[in-house]
């Protein structure tokens, strides 16, 4: 059926609630309102307010109590309303959620899914457009994933909830209203690509563009324009940011010899740096040009009227492609 990204997540959460009585949702405004992006719309009505819980307005509280529930066998799915509000919960996530499995040598784990709408492009005020993925990818014990389209939104949320490791689940908010035809029944619980696998979205021969979350669509637009100009780009949607599927990226770069990584987050010490370093190690002899990064500038996320300059757009990606091809 034709569905939006947000509605696909809603179906995924609904089925997770149906399948496993230990799954519960918690967060601010997720009940009657259905979340500020309506991702949990109607779920409280159908599953009750002890499985779809409107919590007090306290992020450390949300994640900390979810952690406690997980210790008793529940599988909480927390919603953080916006990226910029996860920081009050940062201590709970990195000090406790991420470490419990290691701390107890596998005796206790924390199967939490922490959903975070992230990234910009919706013209919002400060703290509503951040890309904090690097902080979490840098933390051992956490899995970090981000779907870029409605079908992945459904299959990835299902897989994330089923996983025994804690998952930071980033939802690119400017894609919430994107539509696609998704066959939920065919996807089932475990179908779709495995959670930690990248997807080659378009194949190409001249250069590889790695993107994730909100920038996948941007990279695909760039590839379309490049094709008109006679350049063939291979676009990879990373999907999982920790772990990263370097095999898929390596395979592509071995073929194209060129790599451009794009993300909204500032480039300094961002995921692009990690990918550039790994691929340089793995593909040293195949690379025809240095790995280039196209990302946000190393500045606080700017006010809305400037975000179009800050966010990578197809033109900036294409400029990097040109530089790479000229090398």
């Amino acid at each position, binding site marked *: 059926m034709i569905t939006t990204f947000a509605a696909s997540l809603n179906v995924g959460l609904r089925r997770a609630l149906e399948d496993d009585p230990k799954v519960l949702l918690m967060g*601010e*405004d997720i*009940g*009657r*309102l*259905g979340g*500020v992006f309506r991702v949990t719309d109607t779920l409280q009505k159908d599953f009750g307010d002890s499985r779809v819980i*409107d*919590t*007090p*307005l*306290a992020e*450390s*509280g949300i994640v900390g109590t979810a952690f406690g529930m997980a210790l008793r066998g529940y599988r909480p799915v927390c919603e953080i309303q916006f990226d*910029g*509000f996860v*920081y*009050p919960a940062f201590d709970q996530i990195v000090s406790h959620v991420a470490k419990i499995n290691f701390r107890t040598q596998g005796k206790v784990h924390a199967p939490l899914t922490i959903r975070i709408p992230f990234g910009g492009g919706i*013209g*919002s*005020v*400060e*703290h*509503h457009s951040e890309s904090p993925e690097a902080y979490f990818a840098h933390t051992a014990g956490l899995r970090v994933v981000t779907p870029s389209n409605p079908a992945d939104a459904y299959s990835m949320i299902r897989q994330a909830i089923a996983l025994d490791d804690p998952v930071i689940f980033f939802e690119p908010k400017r894609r919430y209203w994107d539509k696609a035809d998704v066959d939920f029944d065919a996807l089932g619980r475990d179908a779709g690509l495995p959670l930690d696998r990248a997807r080659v979205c378009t194949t190409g021969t001249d250069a590889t563009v790695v993107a994730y979350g909100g920038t996948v669509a941007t990279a695909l637009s760039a590839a379309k324009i490049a094709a008109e100009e006679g350049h063939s780009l291979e676009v990879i949607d990373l999907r999982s940011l920790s772990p990263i599927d370097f095999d898929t990226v390596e395979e592509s770069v071995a073929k194209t010899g060129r790599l451009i990584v794009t993300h909204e987050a500032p480039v*300094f010490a961002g995921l692009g740096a990690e990918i550039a370093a790994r691929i340089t190690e793995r593909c040293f002899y195949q690379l025809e040009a240095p790995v280039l990064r196209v990302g946000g*500038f*190393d*500045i*606080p996320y*700017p*006010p*809305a*009227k*400037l975000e179009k*300059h*800050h966010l990578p757009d197809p033109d*900036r990606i294409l*400029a990097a492609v040109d530089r790479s091809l000229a090398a």
Partner: protein
Amino acid sequence: MPGQPDYPVQLVQPDGRRVLDPEHAALVADVGPEQLRALYEDMAITRRIDIEGTALQRQGQLGLWAPLLGQEAAQVGSAHALYPDDYVFCSYREAAVAYCRGVPPTELTRLWRGVAHHCWDPHAVNMTNPNIVVGSQGLHATGYAFAAHLDGAEIATIAYFGDGASSQGDIAEALGFAASWSAPVVFFCQNNHWAISEPVRVQSATPIARRAYGYGMPGVQVDGNDVLAVLAVTRQAVARARSGGGPSFIEALTYRMGPHTTADDPTRYRSAAETEQWARRDPIDRVRRLLEREGHWDYAFELRVTEHADEVAHQVRTATIDLPDPAPTELFDHVYTTPHPLITEQRREYTEYLTGDPDEASARPEGVPR
């Protein structure tokens, strides 16, 4: 609960009749007809500013607006209790407080239009800019108050926040620090009954003001739609802070008549009946009834207030529409106070990318204003 009245402090009833409360009435004994009219005028003007903000958003001139409709008495009453050298830490809804602090109406919308992350110069009016991360300002206010105390400055610092914010760890920690340090800070909770879609019961099983006692400071609940009562209890807390008496907590019971922000749809979570019930407690009507009852209302005054409010709203409107979009290179301004090689490089590269001209790119060093 010792020291706490079982009802909110009230000095004027919704129909404009005075309430017999000698203790609190004494705190506003000096407020005669002229000052009452001044309170009325500020409330009417800030309501007009607020309506203009919503209209400007609807017309696409603002990206967002957080209406204060219904909370005029809580904001204007408390702001009138402050001295110019007191310092205000606000959330994102205190446009009326800002107006009373002397923020030019032309500076109220910058952030909401998306051209900057701030609205006014904080030190020019001793009031911080809108703060989006809910509750964080409670700690900032406590730190500021303690620093003022260390300096020997006899001022009060006030932190405005909502009922939802009272759940944040930052507010709990602020109460703890303030009590521990006897910091001269006033915690002013505008309990407008809703944190977006969550009723106050989700945040607390007890009146929020009661928490103050657990931390060792007085907590008072006030009818937040009664401007005189709010003025009275805030004066008391401010006087206490300024004279070295330490922190206090005020919970003003009020109601957010509009949506949470212009992006919100309150019909999804609350009943029209509830909103109508609160409309009957309108804070501005109440002062008007009091003035009428006591013979201080006349048509000339009403006309003057309307004209003044229209004029201020006009200023807000034209200033907003005239705000230019920032230049792309402003991305790189003020990230640091001193030059930073990474930013300098990115500014040069991006300017070159935009203009195709390497000379223009290096013409203006970082940090030099245009």
